[in-house]
């Protein structure tokens, strides 16, 4: 038996928007990222239903995938349970499975094999039956299933902070709430009931009301109905007496229900109650952890959660939250296909710090540098006929060839759908090749070139002077200066540059590509550093990629680049459910 309840695997079939979901969360804190409507909250709701502390949880038609109530939904978890869960008290003995790191299996070892240490786990599930009833089960290793009692679920004690604005369940004495588990006095409600029953309520009534009651009593008597009428506490359907009891705290000398404090305080208080409960064996789910919390309190809360012994499931839309998930937290990305992938901190740390929004998009397209980011943004804006971010597609800066390779590999390993646009710097060809095989059209690596090179190469020679020109930002002169320096000229007029190029038997196009990519080939030693920075005045700057993109169209390079770029664009379009296009709208 383990010290706390741990979910090793969570499978969801046909629950709300998740058709098939299979996840092996880590111990400790799990932070689920992803764009909107991907099902992050559904995952937390699934856990909440599975560990529901009551049998009165209801299931709605909308809980079934595509509202198909003819097909059952299943939420199934493979869990380690603490002794306090009381799983041993099931009517029929619940037998453990062995956790092999991937799934729950039968403990098998044949004669002669050494005895392996087992990791005992239980497989528990809730099914939404075709009668719209939830049915909780524990799966036995022989394939049969027994009812999973509500007391086991209550003992496991999932603490759930939903994003619902009015949620204060754990601050009240509701069955299975954090406060209920903290107080742990099973006969308390009955005693309150008895105490309240002794309060002579009728005495508090005003005279008219007392009279009305007496009149009623008389009438009842005449009709041989029960008499001796008085007011008192009755129990029945609806809220229990426990739900009327909650934590109070002093505020400016008065006792105020904790539930009327701000959302952030309520949530932090609920977590404190859960943490103070004996055993602290519970699982915690927090939807939109940033809700109601200022960044400094959010940082503090994440820090606390990382240190708790129990397993925590968090969703967030907050870049601040992603940024401060420390070494002990685990980041997961839920993609638009309901696939969840692990983002190892070491591999994505740089990107996470620099551009946390990469992991909050529905779909991220990673450009190697500023040129690629701008170029992609430009073509996608055209392809989407608007801002792609409106549909959750975010273009991110991967900051360099090696960093992008690491990032894309990590995402590919996690089977997460991302796109990439990168140069070919002739490094790690094997890794790029493998990545390309994995990503298909979603990755465009310019063959033997940088983006600048590929695009400029496609621009007709007679349009090159227009390519250089950028008077709006005052870059025309600077660029001519770069070209002149590179052919060793003092004057920077086009005619002189062309003449010098003719002598050196070099094309203007080649010279422009060298300047735009910051090539240092042939540079005098003292100028190499300066030459390297040339690119920043061409397209390797904010807005530079967009300039390159618009000139690609305007100067007629698109037709010859179309075959390269269109598959990437269409891969991105289809990933977010758009129709593919055959050309860029003009």
């Amino acid at each position, binding site marked *: 038996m383990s010290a706390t309840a741990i979910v090793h695997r969570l499978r969801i079939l046909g629950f709300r928007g998740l058709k098939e979901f299979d996840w092996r969360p880590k111990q400790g804190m799990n932070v689920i990222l992803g764009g909107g409507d991907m099902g992050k909250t559904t995952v937390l709701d699934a856990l909440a239903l599975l560990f529901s502390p009551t049998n009165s949880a209801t299931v709605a038609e909308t809980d079934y995938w595509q509202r198909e109530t003819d097909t059952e939904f299943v939420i199934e978890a493979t869990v380690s349970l603490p002794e306090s869960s*009381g799983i*041993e*008290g099931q009517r029929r*003995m619940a*037998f453990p499975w062995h956790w092999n790191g991937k799934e729950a299996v039968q*403990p098998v070892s044949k*004669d002669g094999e050494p*005895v392996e240490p*087992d990791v005992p786990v239980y497989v528990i599930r809730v099914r939404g039956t075709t009668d719209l009833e939830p049915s909780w089960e524990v799966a036995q*290793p022989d394939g049969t299933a027994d009812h999973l009692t509500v007391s086991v679920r209550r003992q496991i004690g999932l603490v759930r902070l939903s994003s619902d604005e009015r949620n204060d369940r754990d601050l009240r004495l509701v069955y299975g709430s954090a406060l209920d588990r903290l107080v742990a006095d099973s006969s308390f409600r009955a005693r309150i009931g008895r105490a309240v029953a002794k309060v002579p309520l009728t005495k508090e009534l005003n005279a008219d009301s007392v009279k009305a009651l007496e009149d009623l009593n008389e009438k009842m008597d005449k009709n041989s109905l029960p008499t001796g009428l008085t007011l008192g506490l009755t129990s029945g359907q609806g809220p229990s007496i426990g739900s009327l009891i909650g934590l109070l705290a002093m505020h400016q000398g008065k006792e105020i229900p904790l539930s009327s404090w701000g959302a952030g305080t309520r949530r932090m208080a609920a977590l404190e109650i859960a943490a103070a409960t004996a055993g602290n064996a519970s699982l915690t789910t927090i939807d939109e952890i940033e809700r109601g919390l200022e960044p400094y309190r959010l940082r503090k809360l994440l820090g606390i959660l990382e240190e708790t012994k129990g397993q925590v499931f968090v969703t967030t839309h907050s870049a601040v939250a992603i940024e401060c998930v420390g070494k002990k937290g685990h980041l997961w990305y839920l993609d638009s296909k309901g696939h969840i992938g692990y983002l190892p901190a070491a591999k994505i740390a740089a990107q996470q710090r620099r551009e946390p929004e990469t992991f909050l998009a529905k779909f991220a397209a990673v450009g190697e540098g500023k040129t690629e980011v701008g170029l992609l943004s430009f073509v996608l804006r055209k392809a989407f006929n608007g801002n792609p971010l409106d549909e959750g597609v975010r273009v991110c800066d991967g900051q360099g060839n090696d960093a992008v390779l690491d990032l894309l590999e990590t995402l590919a390993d996690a089977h997460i759908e991302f796109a990439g646009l990168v140069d070919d710097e002739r490094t790690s060809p094997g890794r790029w090749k493998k990545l390309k095989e994995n990503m298909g059209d979603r990755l465009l690596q310019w063959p033997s070139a940088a983006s600048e090179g590929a695009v400029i190469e496609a621009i007709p020679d007679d349009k090159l002077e227009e390519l250089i020109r950028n008077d709006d930002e005052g870059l025309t002169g600077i660029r001519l200066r770069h070209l002149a320096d590179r052919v060793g000229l003092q004057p920077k007029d086009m005619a002189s540059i062309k003449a010098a190029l003719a002598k050196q038997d070099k094309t203007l196009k080649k010279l422009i590509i060298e300047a735009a990519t910051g090539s240092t080939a042939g540079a005098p030693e003292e100028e190499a550093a300066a030459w390297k920075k040339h690119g920043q005045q061409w397209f390797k700057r904010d807005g530079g990629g967009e300039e390159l993109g618009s000139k690609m169209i305007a100067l007629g390079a698109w037709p010859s680049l179309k075959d390269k770029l269109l598959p990437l664009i269409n891969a991105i379009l289809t990933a977010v459910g758009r129709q593919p296009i055959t050309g860029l709208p003009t």
Partner: protein
Amino acid sequence: MSDDDVAHLLRSDETLVIIEAPAGCGKTFQGASYAKDVAATLERGRLLVLAHTHAACGEFRKRTQGASNRVEVKTVASLATEIVSVYHKALDVPPHAETWAWKDNGEGFNEIAQKCADLLTRHPMIGRALVCRYPVVICDEHQDCTPHQHAILMALHRGGAKLRIFGDPLQRIFSGTSPKVARVDAERWESLKAEGKHATLEVPHRWKQGGSLELGEWILQARAALLNNQPVVVPAKRPAGLQVIVADNRGQARKQFALDAAHRKTVDAVMLRDEMLVLTSSNILVDALSAYTNRRIGIWEGHTREMLGILVEALQAANGNAEAVASALVAFVSGVGTGFSMSSHGNRLLQEIKEGCCKTTKGKPACIQEMAKLILAEPSHVGAARALKLLGGYIANKIAGFDAIKIDYRSEFGDALRLESFATPEDGLSELARRRAHFWRALPPRVVSTIHKAKGLECPHAMLIPCDKSFADTAYGRCRLYVALSRASNSLTLVVPSFGGSPLLKLE
């Protein structure tokens, strides 16, 4: 050790307590009252009582009523079957391990116990999970544990269970007749005693409460003698309740029991009184003795159904062949009763089946033809059960040609009729066995039983007949004699042959 000391030791914090429990010395009382106390104080989980016979399970359930939601009583075999069934995929056993185990008249249970012991040894997590549910385990009649069953018990102990073992090495009659195995079992008992704390129950309660205390004390002396490999002395001055009749079986055939007129009168006077348990050494003698009394003494069938097992196996093998079904039926009826054999009815039944029941007949052949029709209509356990039901009706109504048939094993015959309602005969066999496990049948007023089936029973009066050489001077013989001697609380009658009596008895 006094009863109070034993009770105290049971309730101590010792993890392993061994109680040597001679018959009738309040073992079940001690065990059940301990069980009730534990059930009332257990913080979590339940108490598990492991017995061997369904009779013992029934007794424990009866005595722990009220605490039943905290006490689970089952046989060691059913615990092993439950565990093996759950992990059947890993253990290469069919899903319904119990059904499978009934093969070869229950031989599969030993294999199951072995697989279970192996599983628990290799995967301690299962033992620990069991101990979470059953933090305290009582084992009854430990002497009847096979080595694998003992290993299961010790795996639970290793998993952290508090173990309370009751046993009596002198009541070890189910573990075979081999002296070698007997020696191993004796050593096992001694080493258990050395490993934990042990005590012996010494007060003959069965005889103190309304029985013959003198008889009880003599039985304890007999036990001491048998334990020391000495013969049991029957003193010239017989203790109150002990009676010896010298009489020889004059039966001509092996399956016959007969006495001459003089002895018959003496023996019958005792044998036919109420609350009498007649004990004998073999199934053949049980049948013979029942016949000897003209069935005024019924047969105690216990919880075993040997012929039913054979019938089920034959039906399974018949696989739709009507002739094979009919042969299985004939073998079954001749096994559970008399007056129905191949020559008396079977040949005709087979002939009807071969010919397709085409002849017009009357009387007995017509009745047989009706049975054949049922088998032909459904040549399976269903048809067989329906034909048996029809046969049962003929016998009950004394139809000519069937009036000489006597069913001795009525429960077994009844169980065969119930096979009809199951999908397969094997399902039926295991389900009926399961039902028997939860069903407690009181002893009829007069009954004859083998010693094996009478183990665990008690009765005011018992007769052991005949006390002959079958009680040999071996460990097994001594155990069997002791079990027989210790059943009755008020009177025990030993019927001894004039020659060739048991070497274990020394008559003064």
